[in-house]
């Protein structure tokens, strides 16, 4: 019997209309866990670097995490993996909500879509019964609206629906997949779904998910619940309120937005409004949120209330979470009422709440600068808010200038020319980033921005405080019950970390310490993405209920895989490296590992070089950021090394001497002469 996982994937060829239920190899689960881990393995094997994002050969993998469907609190994430049309690299956006457990109960770990349907369809999965159904009547419908219509026509109110809106249908490079209160937004995966002609994936499941050692597993669950309760009652002092508790930043709950509105950038991530927040705005915004917010809501099996139902007069209700509360508001220099209103339309269209407002603000900046003119934007209304609606409508329909903007700021700037690239200033690897511009380089964040292959800072940061605490006493208090650290040397680093003086940024934490911190933080995110755990209860907040010490026990008792901390760390390293390998195959190199030029005002080129050099070595990558043959071998990824050699990946970048020996060995083994 398979535990925690179902042991089956659903393979759907949309070109042929073929549906297969395929048993998976349990050894892959041991090596790559599940979710992102096994997704990466499939992508490596089946989507070679030549594959275009909009090729029928690109896969769209919608996967539940390994522990989704078990009673582990907050384990509900769906990991969607494909090649992004925007970055042209691996995209692995995730969504919470209710989809992943339902998929497990239907009897599948993943839905793997390949090919392209000639007409718009939706996929209906009801346990063993799987159908590709006509979706002509849903063309152009909103993502939320679509979910409602499908549930009604199937008479299945308990089905979970992941759908795209107009943006996905029209292959907008930042189109999302919307699912109830959640969405998989980053990287334009909704565009790939639209390219495949799939309007929605609908799932209803009524089968069992088994756990290997029930009593042990339940005890672990109960401990986690107790700790969540403790953390809810004991927020962390000395950090800003949104970092004090568990869950995603509690944007739907909080009213005080002084910190975001005064520290994050407005418009196209340009303008800081240092004295923006005042009593009048506070009162207005509070009134707006109080009247629009019907209820704080949760994902499957989680007590944190990170989302909300938003219902504004004259508009259909929708569900919102996290920072999309402010992105439109700040992009358009408007107020919260506007932000919540346009987000309703954006949610129906199915677009990413981070990229979209920046793309629109970018267009308006270009217009102000005369790079885009009235000829490019005929009919552009007066007023920022009206312009935002106008641009949104153009983008999701790919009409006129919208057709260019729909590719995101990087590609749009290339196409527009005339110096527009200077305005696409907030990207990493062609992907729009949080609107944040800071003063002094933070060496930990430098490494995370450079090498985080989810290309989103919130998807790599979390376990280590963002800034030093002011006094030694505060630090001592903090480390007292900080048992989540992999080992005690992290406590010492934090204890010695001063706001100024010798042991302050950018030269403290030291380069080596930064490597350790970044590696730990990243590892926790990667483990979450394989298990399907919400980052809000694990890798994102300080002192979370899930950590490197209890995760091996959850996997052992849940999935019946003999697991310990070292083995888990090694597995995470394995598929993390595989993600890198896929991107390396697609041309990503050291030159791409850098933050937006203007992210920090005070930069330290020598230190930055040393940071990257040291971190690459630490990760087992060569000076160009390519995993070495030695490190690939250690991770059991010789098949990657073989492919790299075959493709001459190393030939452009001088590899260290030790790799030559490995190369010989690998080449021998390729000839069947295994030593």
């Amino acid at each position, binding site marked *: 019997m398979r535990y925690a996982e179902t042991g089956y994937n659903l393979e759907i060829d949309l070109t042929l209309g073929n549906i297969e239920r395929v048993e998976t190899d349990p050894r892959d689960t041991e090596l790559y866990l599940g979710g992102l881990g096994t997704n990466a393995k499939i992508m490596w094997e089946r989507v070679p670097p030549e594959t275009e994002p909009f090729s029928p050969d690109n896969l769209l993998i919608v996967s539940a995490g390994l522990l989704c*469907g*078990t*009673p582990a*609190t907050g384990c509900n994430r769906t990991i969607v993996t494909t090649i992004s049309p925007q970055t042209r690299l691996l995209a692995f956006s995730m969504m919470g909500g*209710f989809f992943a*457990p339902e998929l497990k*109960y239907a009897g599948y770990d993943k839905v793997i879509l390949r090919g392209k349907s000639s007409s718009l369809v939706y996929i209906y999965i009801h346990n063993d019964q799987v159908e590709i159904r006509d979706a002509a009547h849903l063309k152009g419908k909103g993502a*939320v609206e679509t979910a*409602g219509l499908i549930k009604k026509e199937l008479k299945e*109110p308990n089905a979970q629906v992941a759908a795209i809106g107009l943006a996905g249908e029209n292959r907008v490079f930042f189109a999302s997949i919307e699912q*109830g*209160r959640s969405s998989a937004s980053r990287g334009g995966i909704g565009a790939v779904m639209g390219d495949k002609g799939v309007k929605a994936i609908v799932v209803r*499941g*009524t*089968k*069992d*998910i*088994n*756990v290997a050692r*029930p*009593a042990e*597993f*339940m005890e672990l669950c109960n401990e986690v*619940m107790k700790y*969540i*309760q403790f953390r809810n009652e004991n927020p962390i002092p000395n950090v800003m309120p949104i970092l004090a508790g568990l869950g995603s930043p509690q944007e739907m709950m909080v009213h005080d937005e002084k910190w975001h509105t005064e520290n994050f950038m407005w418009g196209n991530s340009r303008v800081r409004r240092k004295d923006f927040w005042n009593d009048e705005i506070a009162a207005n915004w509070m009134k707006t949120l109080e009247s629009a917010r*019907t*209820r*704080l*809501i*949760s*994902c*499957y*099996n*989680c*007590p944190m*209330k990170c989302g909300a*139902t938003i*219902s504004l007069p004259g508009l*259909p*209700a*929708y*569900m919102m979470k996290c920072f999309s509360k402010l992105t439109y508001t700040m992009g358009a220099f408007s107020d919260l009422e506007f932000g919540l209103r346009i987000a309703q339309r954006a949610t129906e269209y199915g677009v990413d709440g981070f990229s979209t407002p920046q793309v629109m603000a970018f267009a308006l900046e270009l217009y102000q600068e005369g790079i885009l003119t009235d000829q490019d934007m005929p009919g552009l209304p007066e007023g920022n808010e009206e312009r935002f609606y106008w641009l949104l409508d153009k983008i999701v329909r790919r009409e006129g200038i919208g057709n260019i903007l729909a590719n995101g700021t990087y590609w749009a700037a290339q196409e527009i020319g005339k110096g527009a690239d200077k305005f696409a200033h907030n990207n990493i690897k062609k992907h729009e980033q949080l609107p944040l511009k800071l003063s002094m380089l933070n060496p930990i964040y430098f490494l995370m921005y450079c090498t985080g292959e989810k290309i989103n800072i919130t998807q790599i940061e979390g376990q280590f405080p963002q800034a030093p605490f002011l006094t030694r006493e505060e630090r001592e208090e903090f480390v007292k019950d900080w048992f989540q650290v992999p080992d005690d040397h992290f406590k010492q680093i934090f204890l010695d970390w001063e706001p100024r003086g010798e042991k302050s940024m950018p030269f403290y934490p030291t380069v080596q310490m930064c490597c350790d911190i970044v590696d730990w933080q990243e590892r926790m995110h990667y483990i979450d993405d394989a298990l399907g755990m919400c980052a809000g209860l694990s890798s994102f907040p300080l002192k979370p209920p899930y950590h490197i010490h209890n995760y091996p026990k959850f996997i052992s008792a849940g999935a019946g895989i003999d697991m310990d901390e070292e083995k888990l760390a090694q597995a995470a390293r394995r598929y993390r490296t595989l993600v890198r390998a896929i991107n390396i195959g697609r041309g990503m190199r050291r030159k791409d590992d850098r933050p937006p030029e203007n992210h920090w005002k005070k930069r330290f080129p020598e230190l930055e070089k040393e940071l990257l050099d040291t971190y690459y070595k630490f990760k087992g990558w060569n000076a160009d950021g390519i995993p070495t043959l030695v490190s690939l071998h250690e991770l059991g990824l010789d098949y990657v090394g073989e492919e790299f050699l075959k493709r001459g990946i190393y030939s452009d970048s001088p590899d260290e001497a030790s790799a030559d020996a490995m190369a010989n060995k690998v080449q021998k083994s390729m000839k069947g002469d295994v030593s």
Partner: protein
Amino acid sequence: MTGERKTKKVKTIKINVDKCNGCRACEVICSAFHAAPKYSSNNPARSRIRVIRDPLADIYVPIYAGDHAVAECAGRDKYTIDGKEYDECSFCRASCPSRSEFKEPDSGLPLKCDMCEGEEEPLCVKWCMVDALTYEEREEEVEEGADREELEIGLEALAAKYGVKTLQNTLARLSKKA
């Protein structure tokens, strides 16, 4: 005839729909607890509590499985409360032919809440960290006699219809079966 006064324990789960966050943790733990062996599997479709949800309409009603009804009701009720229209059967606890709730997904056999017999409190309450579900036990005085009186009236009616002899035989057969 006056009945004997006795106390009985009444177990109540108080449901505050205003506090429900719709997470369905109650369904998760219910199905796990009632799995055999205990906690060995999980499947909300087997749960004896269901959250009737319609998030966009802001409807969240946790409902416990009550008795099985062999036949559907003759009519259905639709409630509107605070402007929210609840689907028919939203508040009904019965497993019955008209709905899929509260039936084993494989066999179709009816499910019924047993208040997690043997546990300190029903586990759905324990797992409801937002306090939409709370547990209360209270003692209630009941007149045992009143029940006997009702029974006697019923038996009298049956005796009149079938004859005392048939009734006696049937009772004897039933008690053997039990």
